[in-house]
C-alpha cells in the first residue's frame, strides 16, 4: 500500500520537477537561481535531512531487534533533524520574501516555491506521522516486534529524502555547473 502511495507521489513530484526544468530554460532563470539561492546553507540543511533517513533506518533496525529505548532515541533524533531542515527552509523563504522573490514575482519564484513548498509539505506531514509513532513508542505500543507501521513510515520518509536529493540537485546544484 505505502509503496503504491509513494509511487503515485513520485509521479506528482515528477510533474512538478518537469515543470521546473521546463521553465529553467527560460532567459534569466539561471541568474535568478545563482543570485537568490544560498547553496552552502541549504547544503548543510540537506545533509541534516539525509542524515534523518539514516537515523530513521537505525530506528527500524533497533525496533526489529526489540531495543525499544534505542528506537525511541532514534525516532526523536529523526524528528529533530527533520525539524531543523524545515526551519532552514523557512529561513531561506523569509530571506527570499524580503528580497521580493515570491510566487508572483517571476517564473523562478513560481516554480521554486511550488516545488520546494510541496516537498516541505511532505516533510511536515512525515514529521507529524513520525511524531505520532514516537508518542506510540513511548506509550509502549511497539514493545513487541512484528508491526509493519514503522517500516511503512520508513518507506515514506526515505522517499521524501530521495525526492529532496533530486530537488536539491536540480534547483541548487545544476545552475553552478
Amino acid at each position, binding site marked *: 500500500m505505502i509503496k503504491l502511495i509513494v509511487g*503515485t507521489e513520485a509521479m506528482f513530484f515528477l510533474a512538478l520537477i518537469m515543470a521546473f526544468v521546463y521553465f529553467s530554460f527560460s532567459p534569466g532563470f539561471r541568474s535568478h537561481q545563482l543570485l537568490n539561492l544560498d547553496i552552502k546553507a541549504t547544503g548543510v540543511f540537506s545533509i541534516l535531512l539525509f542524515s534523518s533517513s539514516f537515523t530513521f533506518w537505525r530506528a527500524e533496525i533497533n525496533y526489529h531487534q526489540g531495543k525499544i529505548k534505542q528506537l525511541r532515541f532514534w525516532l526523536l533524533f529523526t524528528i529533530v533533524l527533520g525539524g531543523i531542515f524545515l526551519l532552514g527552509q523557512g529561513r531561506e523563504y523569509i530571506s527570499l520574501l524580503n528580497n521580493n522573490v515570491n510566487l508572483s514575482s517571476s*517564473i523562478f519564484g513560481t516554480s521554486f516555491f*511550488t516545488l520546494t513548498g510541496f516537498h516541505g509539505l511532505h516533510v511536515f506531514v512525515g514529521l507529524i506521522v513520525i511524531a505520532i509513532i514516537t508518542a506510540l513508542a513511548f506509550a509502549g505500543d511497539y514493545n513487541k516486534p512484528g508491526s509493519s507501521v514503522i517500516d511503512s513510515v520508513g518507506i515514506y520518509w526515505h522517499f521524501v529524502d530521495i525526492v529532496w536529493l533530486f530537488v536539491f540537485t536540480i534547483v541548487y546544484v545544476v545552475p553552478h555547473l
Partner: protein
Amino acid sequence: MKLILLPEPEEPIPSLSVSHNQGLLQWISSVDHKQIGIMYLWLSVIFLVAGGIEILLVRWQLAVPNNHFLNPEVFNQLFTMHGTTMIFFVAMPAIFGFNTYLVPLMIGANDMAYPRLNAFSFWMTFFGGFLLYFSFLAGGAPDAGWFNYAPLNEYNYSSSPGIDYYCSGLLLSGIGTVTASANFVVTILKYRVNSMSLKQMPLFVWMMLINSFLILAAFPSLNAALVMLLLDRQLHAHFFSAAGGGSAILWQHLFWLFGHPEVYIVILPIFGIFSEVFPVYSRKPIFGYAFIIGSGMAIALLAFGVWVHHMFATGLGNTVNNFFAASSMLIGIPTGVKIFNWLATMHGGAIRFKVSMMFAIAFLIEFTIGGLSGISAALVPIDWQLTDTYYVVAHIHYVFIGGTLFGLFSGLFYWFPKISGRMLDEKLGKWFFWLFVIGFNTCFLVQHALGAMGMARRVYSYPDLPGWGILNLISTVGGFIMAIAVGLLVYIIIKALKTGEKALRDPWDANTLEWTTSSPPELKNFDHVIPVNGARPFRDFKRPDDADWKKNGQQWKIN
C-alpha cells in the same frame, strides 16, 4: 500463499438488509463495500441526469441556426460542465461502483482491504462532485471546456470563480480516485481466496488491477496541473500565463499526460465487463484469456506515449507529431486484438440475446466506428483539418458512449439481479436498448459530416450554411431520443426495485464467484468459497464432469 484474515465485522452492522431503522445514517456511516458500491452507482445516476440536462439545453440551442435560446456565457458553462460531469462524475463513479461492489465478491473476499479508506474514497468523490456543482450558486460554473485550456482558464479570461471550483472539485475527487485504486491493488493482490491464482482471476478483476496502476500513474499529473492552476488564479503565480514568463502549452502537456491515460482508464474496466458478459451469454469460455490480459497491459503502457496527438495543432514540429501519430496508431492494435477476442468468443457459441448481450454486441460495432474515426484523426494532416470540429465530438462520443456507457449498461443488466435481488424487465429493456442505440446514432453519426463540413465545436451558434441546419436538427432529435431512453431506464430500474421478479442466485448460469452468493449477498459475503481450479470456478462447480481443469487446457481453443 499464506493465509490472510479477512476484515469482517464481529457483529452485523445494524440493518444492512430490510429494516432501515437507522435510515440514511446507516448508509452515510457504512464501510461495507457493497453499500459503498451502490452509493457510487447512485451518485453516477444523479450526475448522469444533471450532465444530461445540461447537454439537452446545449442541443436545444444548436437545433436551428442563429438561435438565441442561450447566451454564449451560459452555453460555455453548460458544455464545460457536461464534459467534466460525464467523465469525472458519471463514468468514473459508475466504474468504481461496479468495481467496489464486485471485485471482493469475484475474488472470494468479504470486503476491500481497507474498508474505511474505501468509504473515504467514495465521500471524496461525492463532495468533489457537489463542490463542482456548487459553482453554479457561487457566481458561475467553469466555462473553459472540460480540458480547460490555458490561457482561457486564467483569471484574466475567466474571472468568475467557476474554474477555482473545477480545480478543487477535481482535486478532491482525484484524491478519492487514487486512494480507491491503491485499495483495489492491495485487495486484488492480497485478499483473493487462497486457491485462486493470478491466472485464474476473472478478467474483470484483471482489468481493474491494470487500471488501478494506470490511475496511480496518471492522476498525479492532473493533480499537479490543478494545483498549479489554483496557484496561478489565487496567488498570482505564472505557470500558465505567457505574460508572466509561464507557458500555456505546459497545461496541455500536463493535462493530456493525464487525459489520454484517462480515456483508457474509463475503457479498460469496460473491457473487463465485456470479458465477463460475452462468455456467459455465448455459453463459451473467453477466447484468448491471456491475450486479453496482455493487450490490456499493452494499452496501459502505450497510453502514456500518445498524449501529443491531442496537440498536433499546437506546432510542436514534424518529428514530434510523427512520433505521436505512429504511437497512436500502434495503440489501436491491442484494442483490435480484444475486439477479435470477443468475436471469437461469440463464434460458434449458443448466444442468448439478453439486453446485456445486445449492448455488448452493439458495443463491438459502435466502438469500432469510434476506433476508426480515432485512427483517422491520428493522421496529422487529417487532424489539422478536423481538430476542434464536430468530427472530434463524434469520435469522443462514439468511444465514450458506444464504449464506456454501453459497457456500463451491459454490466447493469448483467449484475442488477445480483446487486438488488430483482430482475430487470427484459422486454422494456429491449425497448430501452433500441431507443438508446437509435438515438445515439442519430445524434452522433451526422456530426462526423458536420465536422468534415467545418462546423467548429464549442461555438454557441452557427450561420445558416447549406446542410448545417438540418444535420444539427437531426442531431438534436437524436439527443432527445437518448434522453427518453434514459428516462425509460430509470423507470425500468424503479419498477424492478418495487415489483420486479425476485432474482435467483444465478439467473444467467454464470461462471464466477459472485454468483455463488445469494441475491443480494449477505452482509458477510462468504462463509466458505467453492474450490477454484480455473478461470470459471462456478461453472466447474456446477458441472464437475465437464470442468475446465479436467480438460488440459483445451478450453483455450475455438469450439
